[in-house]
């Protein structure tokens, strides 16, 4: 029950006259990773790299899985910045922008709770999944857009810095049982889950959308206009901070045993996704920034390149929220139903339903089907979750 990746607020970018192919491709890669990882883990109990054991606390995460959620949440900030610039250029009032942002944030938070109830069953309604994080992220970005970018980066750094201390204060490990977030239905546990101990708590996960928002103009050029800044983005001075983050993550991993508990949050491993260790946050941030800059350089020129790749990636990106919801429904609901029918226990087949080969094959089939369905839905104008969000929020 590990929601490893995030649907992104793709609607803002969809409103832009010229989409950034790099964002579409990166988001499509992230959602493909997420689908593969969820199918492999939830259906076959396969965690990659020959590791055994459960998915969760203090476990070294195999790298592709770990990059899904950071990529989505980071791109949420980037997409929001591009959308914001576009709205301002179009002369939309600040009040209208604020209303739209807050509505989207609340929509995603509400959708996140509904998703938890419908997919993970009612007892996990407050597990603080990725949808609620992105909703909170949008609400935070509504305030952050009034701040100078330097302050936003400062806030993100502060969030990352205090997260281990908060985990140490609350005793993070006591909220996790066998690799899953296990909380009581009390105000304190629910609030702490959202702040520190849940799957995607504000500390430190909010740093991703904030960083994406603050760095977007420097990475992508200003606004949602055609990428006139291509060529400027891939120069070494601009990439140095991203390399610095990766190096800092590497150094943190080397020095991990010697670091005090208030820094490590009592985590035994340096690179963990649950909780998101400081090394993990720094490393994934640096990796995502480098990937985005590289793709921006490669794909966003005035002359389109790799049109076939972009043509298939763009629908996946535009409908990433729908795909996120759908892929859970198609592989988790049958699991619950068959388990209930065969043994009376919904989770009887959890992670033991099939061999890994079958799970990966199903994931690939789902991705192909999703890509075809997305293109078909766009041509036919079939309503999706994204269009529902736009209809409600805009």
């Amino acid at each position: 029950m590990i929601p490893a990746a995030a649907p992104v607020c793709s609607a803002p970018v969809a409103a832009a006259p010229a989409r950034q192919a790099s964002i579409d491709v990166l988001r499509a890669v992230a959602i493909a990773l997420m689908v593969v990882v969820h199918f492999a883990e939830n259906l076959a109990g396969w965690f990659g790299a020959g590791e055994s054991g459960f998915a969760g606390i203090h476990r070294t995460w195999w790298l592709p899985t770990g990059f899904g959620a950071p990529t989505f949440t980071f791109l949420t900030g980037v997409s929001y910045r591009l959308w914001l610039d576009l709205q301002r250029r179009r002369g939309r009032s600040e009040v209208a922008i604020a209303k739209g942002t807050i509505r989207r944030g609340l929509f995603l938070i509400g959708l996140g709770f509904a998703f938890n109830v419908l997919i993970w069953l009612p007892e996990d309604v407050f597990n603080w999944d990725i949808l609620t994080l992105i909703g909170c992220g949008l609400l935070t970005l509504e305030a952050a857009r009034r701040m100078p970018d330097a302050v936003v980066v400062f806030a993100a750094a502060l969030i990352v810095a205090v997260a281990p201390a908060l985990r140490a204060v609350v005793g993070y490990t006591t909220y996790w049982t066998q690799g899953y977030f296990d909380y009581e239905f009390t105000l304190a546990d629910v609030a702490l889950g959202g702040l520190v101990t849940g799957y995607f708590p504000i500390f430190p996960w909010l740093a991703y959308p904030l960083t994406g928002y603050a760095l977007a103009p420097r990475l992508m050029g200003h606004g949602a206009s055609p990428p006139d800044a291509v060529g400027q983005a891939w120069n070494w001075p601009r990439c140095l901070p991203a390399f610095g983050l990766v190096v800092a993550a590497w150094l943190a991993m080397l020095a991990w045993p010697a670091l005090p508990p208030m820094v490590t949050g009592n985590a035994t491993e340096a690179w963990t996704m649950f909780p998101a260790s400081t090394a993990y946050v720094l490393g994934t941030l640096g990796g995502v920034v480098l990937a985005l800059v590289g793709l921006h350089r490669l794909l966003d020129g005035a002359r389109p390149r790799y049109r076939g790749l972009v043509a298939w990636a763009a629908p996946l990106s535009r409908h990433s929220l729908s795909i996120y919801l759908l892929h859970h429904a198609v592989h988790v609901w049958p699991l619950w139903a068959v388990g209930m029918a065969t043994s009376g226990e919904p989770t009887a087949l959890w992670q033991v339903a099939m061999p890994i080969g079958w799970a990966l094959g199903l994931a690939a089939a789902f991705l192909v089907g999703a890509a075809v369905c997305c293109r078909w839905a766009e041509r036919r104008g079939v309503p999706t979750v994204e269009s529902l969000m736009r209809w409600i929020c805009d």
Partner: protein
Amino acid sequence: MITTARDRPPNQPPAAVGDNSLPVPLGLPAAAACSTRRLSTGETLSLLSIPQPESDGPPPIMTPVGPGRIEDVVRGWVSGVPSALHPTVFVPLYGCQIAWTAGRAAVIGPPERLDQLDVALVEFADLEAELRAAERRAATLLDTVEGDVATSLSLEEHSPARGTELAGRHREAVAVGRRLALLAPGVHAALIHPPTLASQLGERLRDRARLVERHEFATQRAELAERVAEACGQRAFEAGIARRQIGLEWAIIVLLVVQTALMVVDLLSQRTTP
């Protein structure tokens, strides 16, 4: 650096340099000569000099009174410059005829007076060209005034490039004002007593070309642009300071929020019994 007529001491030759011979238009006497003078603004002045013996009659007026006359040919040649911005000015003066427009000029007169008239014409053309350049720059500055004011009032849009642009505009406005101030003595040149042929030609050309009024209008434009640019620059500067203060305030707010979150987490962790 180009030395202009306004920067040059009065006893030096005209600012124009170069004297390239050009083909003479058809229908003119063999003694006619056509040359090109480069003005201090970089423009060129094609100057047609036609020696003609002095007659006893009244000075002819260069008007199209009949086909084939020298005056008609000259008039057609001067007026025929494709980039002419001003109507052609004709000045009859003591048996001489002078025609001028931006880029071309012609003198018909006794050979012994042609040199003086050429010098006066080039001097005037240089002054007029500089004034015209200043007018263009002032007009360009004026076009950006409204946009600059709107931008400087919008505190949300912070752009270092925009600040640099505003500063550049202020410098340009000051430069145009300085140029116009340097041109003022030439435009408002006092009459020389006793008058000379060259001084009278200069005076009449300045009068016909409305240099005084044009200089006044350009000065007003430059002053307006300078005032606006200065105000916008000041506003942008103050906005920059305000933005830094706002950033500091936001940083303090962020610190307070994080501190509150720490306190809340600490408080909640004491109330839970996991």
